[in-house]
């Protein structure tokens, strides 16, 4: 009898210990980052007070916090303005049509300045296009380089030559070429957008290209022999053996590329005047009001957070498509 009574008690005790241990482990995982952030904010607040610039005191956490709400309100206000504008337009057009049935209503577009959130959207769109174009070129080229030593030998010097080039060096050239080549009466994209996207592409081509080439060239030799014994043709060989086995390497490259692309984009937008986050920073800098620095700081933090989210997104895609679950991806 004793034994049967004691067992559940002991079990409960063990269970409690386990729960406690887990609780503290969870607390540590949450607590330490929070402590880190708090220390950073405190240091920032202390140092900011002591920096006087020509635009006033360097913004501390409080000013930046306030500015972020102002930016949200500005966005809402602009949104309401736009809605009011379209409402007025619709009413006026309806009235004109009622007076004169032959009248064809003119389409007008609201021309208010883009808000901070519109600019975030533009930046995301631009980096997506630039990254997509780069990937479409880099992955097949990388596969070709990995499959054929000759191609790799031919292309490798070019990769090494262009990989370290700063986006700022490309930009003037890209701007001039886009202005000369992209001429149309009814342009689908603005030139500043194309210039920024092309610059992003040029800089985030390389990590994907190199990683794909390395991934493809290091396929298990036995798998290549399997392909030979099965007499897979070149297309099937790439599709069934090469591509799946180098997927982990390709995604490592893509993740690096997206990170670089996002970094390059801000610089490109500043100079190309593409209405994204880069232009926001540049305009605030040129504006030079007492709030500018706080607003730029909001943009800096936003750029950081978006970069982090993009990286996590790529990581989760990478985890999803990677067949080698034994590798811990971080």
């Amino acid at each position: 009898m004793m034994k049967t009574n004691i067992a559940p008690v002991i079990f409960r005790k063990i269970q409690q210990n386990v729960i406690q241990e887990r609780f503290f482990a969870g607390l540590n995982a949450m607590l330490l980052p929070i402590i880190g952030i708090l220390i950073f904010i405190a240091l920032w607040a202390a140092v900011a007070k002591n920096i006087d610039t020509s635009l006033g005191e360097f913004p501390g956490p409080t000013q930046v916090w306030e500015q972020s709400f102002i930016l949200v309100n500005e966005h809402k206000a602009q949104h309401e303005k736009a809605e009011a504008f379209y409402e007025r337009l619709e009413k006026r057009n309806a009235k004109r049509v009622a007076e004169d049935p032959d009248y064809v209503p003119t389409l007008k577009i609201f021309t208010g300045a883009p808000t901070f959130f519109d600019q975030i959207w533009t930046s995301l769109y631009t980096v997506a296009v630039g990254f997509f174009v780069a990937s479409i070129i880099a992955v097949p080229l990388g596969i070709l380089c990995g499959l054929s030593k000759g191609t790799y030998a031919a292309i490798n010097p070019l990769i090494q030559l262009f990989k370290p080039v700063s986006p700022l060096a490309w930009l003037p050239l890209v701007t001039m070429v886009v202005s000369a080549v992209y001429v149309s009466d009814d342009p689908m994209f603005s030139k500043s957008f194309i210039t920024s996207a092309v610059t992003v592409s040029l800089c985030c081509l390389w990590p994907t290209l190199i990683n794909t080439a390395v991934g493809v060239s290091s396929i298990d030799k036995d798998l290549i022999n399997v392909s030979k014994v099965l007499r897979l043709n070149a297309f099937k060989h790439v599709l069934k053996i090469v591509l799946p086995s180098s997927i982990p390497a390709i995604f490592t490259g893509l993740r690096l590329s997206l990170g670089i692309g996002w970094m390059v984009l801000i610089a490109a937008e500043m100079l190309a005047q593409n209405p994204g986050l880069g232009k926001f920073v540049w305009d605030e800098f040129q504006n030079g009001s007492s709030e500018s620095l706080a607003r730029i700081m909001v943009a800096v933090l936003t750029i950081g957070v978006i970069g982090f989210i993009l990286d996590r997104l790529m990581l989760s895609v990478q985890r999803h498509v990677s067949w080698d679950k034994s590798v811990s991806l971080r």
Partner: protein
Amino acid sequence: MTKPIQNKTSGQQRHLELSDVGIDFPTAKGPFCALKNVNLKISKGEFISLIGHSGCGKSTVLNIVAGLYQATTGGVILDNAEVNEPGPERAVVFQNHSLLPWLSVYKNVELAVKQTRNGRSRAEMKAWVEHNLALVHMTHAADKLPSELSGGMKQRVGIARALSMQPKVLLMDEPFGALDALTRAHLQDSVMEIHASLGNTVIMITHDVDEAVLLSNRIVMMTNGPAATIGEILDVDLERPRNRLAMTDNLKYNQYRHAVLTFLYEKQNKIQTVSRVKADIAQSKKKSSSAA
């Protein structure tokens, strides 16, 4: 017991024939002759083991038959056609299974079945994949990934994939080398069972003397490289089906075993003793000092 290299099956129809096969590998110091004068005639349904010390060119012989290597001299003829490229009629079971790690067991076999379609309909292909998985007792794991299987199970799937190509010759490159003794025994029994029911011609590389005697019709013993060749060929005249337990008391079985062991450890002794290694080092030192 052993006999000189000679054609035992000259009267029968030719099936697989290696004639005067040799291979040189290019190295920085000029061509390295790995294999020389390999002559072997194999009739349909025979189970051949290749045995020899590491680095004696067993794998090279197998790779030449598979078409993965090109012989420098001589050649291989299978059913009156010269072998010069790999193909599914000479399916290979690789030493470390070589399953595609991103495909399930079923999909791995299916890839081979689709490649060697033989005019099968979709339903027939499905049935054929399942039949081959059943043959190696792996039906229960059809949807598992190779990484979820034990070494023995992976090798079973590798065998199912090779069999599903309906090869004229099944080539096995030390198929059980990386497995523990019990798993190996299980797989050997499976291979004997399959060989009895399908009657494929099999060439198997092995290090294991018991395995060679238990499974084979003939054991081909190779001399040490460089310029390795066939040393002796041993006919294993034991009734099939062979039972591994009964064999331990079988006089003939033990004589065959003894013959192979004698070849490996007396005639082709390659075991390095401490004194011999020391002598080698001393000699090479002497050489280098005299050269200087």
